[in-house]
């Protein structure tokens, strides 16, 4: 691999995407440079690794953490290499790189195995089983939205919260948990067979309640716990209890 010193971080992050994880990257550095895996020049590799993961934060917290953890391990091994390799009694200590080498070899072993599986998969997929997949239906013609500004305005107002200056955009933790709304809908539909969506959000001022209640409705509809009906665009939305299906909130958010 060509290691560029003067490249901008963004380009490297794109590169980094190619690698499944820190072991993959490390293995790549070692194999590309024909380095003896049993005698890794740890200072050099550490430096290259650190350079390669500059800008790793852009990958997102989870993935970045995995690369950073490996960076920390490399730095630690580098430090241990400077320490005497024998105890005072002259007993030889294990090479600080040994565990890393074992992991690298193990990882490489399974990457090879994965490649063999891929070949088998490709070969297998050239054989077709019997079966029939219905062709995709023609997309339905788009329904023209016919409405007046007054209707649109009334619908927009109906969801709560009156005009005022646009609120500042600030990211805050979700104040209205979807679980709560799921429970509200489920409990309501235990009592009544159907409920108008608007009446579920009427008691709340904040528009977020409308949004989250709607998401909760969709989630429950997906789980076939209720049915949603609306006779025409912008008409009242009704939530119906589904017969036979005991609505259950216990296996809520997964």
């Amino acid at each position: 691999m060509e290691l560029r010193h003067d490249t901008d971080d963004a380009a490297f992050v794109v590169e980094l995407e190619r690698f499944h994880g820190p072991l993959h990257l490390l293995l790549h550095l070692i194999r590309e440079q024909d380095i003896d895996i049993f005698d890794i020049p740890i200072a050099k590799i550490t430096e290259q690794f650190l350079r390669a993961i500059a800008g790793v934060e852009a990958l997102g917290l989870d993935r970045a953490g995995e690369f950073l953890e490996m960076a920390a391990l490399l730095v630690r091994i580098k430090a241990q290499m400077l320490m005497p390799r024998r105890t005072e009694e002259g007993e030889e200590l294990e090479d600080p790189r040994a565990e890393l080498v074992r992991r690298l070899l193990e990882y490489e072993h399974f990457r090879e195995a994965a490649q063999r599986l891929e070949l088998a998969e490709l070969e297998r997929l050239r054989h077709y089983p019997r079966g029939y997949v219905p062709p995709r239906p023609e997309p339905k013609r788009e329904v023209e939205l016919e409405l007046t500004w007054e209707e649109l305005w009334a619908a927009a107002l109906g969801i709560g919260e009156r005009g005022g200056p646009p609120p500042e955009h600030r990211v805050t933790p979700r104040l209205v948990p979807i679980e709560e709304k799921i429970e509200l809908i489920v409990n309501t539909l235990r009592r009544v067979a159907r409920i108008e969506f608007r009446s579920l959000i009427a008691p709340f001022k904040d528009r977020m309640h409308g949004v989250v209640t709607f998401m909760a409705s969709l989630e429950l509809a997906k789980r076939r716990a209720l049915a949603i009906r609306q006779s025409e665009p912008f008409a009242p939305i009704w939530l119906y209890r589904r017969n036979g299906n005991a609505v259950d909130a216990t296996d809520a958010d997964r």
Partner: protein
Amino acid sequence: MRPTQIVEALLFASDAPLTAADIAAADDSLDEAAVEAAIHELRQAYEAEGRAFQIYEMAGGFQILTRPEFAPYLERFDTVVHTARLSPAALEVLAIIAYRQPIGRAEIEEIRGVASSGVLRTLQERELITPVGRGEGLGRPVLYGTTTKFLEHFGFRSLEDLPRPEELPVILREPAPATRGGKAEPDGAGPA
């Protein structure tokens, strides 16, 4: 009705592998040996007649599939059943599970150095792996094994068809000791 014809009818009507025992259950005139003899006969007949399909042995059973040389014609045909290929990450996790089963998530992540729960979920949804037991240690972690579907997906007759570990370019001196509470202790039904 000749046994060969009965066997052929069953294989023709099936879109998944049937075991010799499955097929033998169809008629009193059949037993496993008769089924296998019939399959042998059919295979030779298809070969001699130059049919576009053949009977393949996989996942412990037999299935009629098209021959590979017809793939170019079927590939772009919409109504044909196309099986989605697995992602590189999914193949990596499957390889680890295939060779080390039963194995828990922590051990898989230890080997790969990356979080793998998403991949595990996908593989389970595609029924390529299944929980086969629980390990010892903290929280008794779920251990996974491969399924019959796994064998079907790769066209393996059994796990014996996996590339042998010593054939892989990187040979591990010894299987790494099972650490992190992942000691194998299967209790469910094993993989097929």
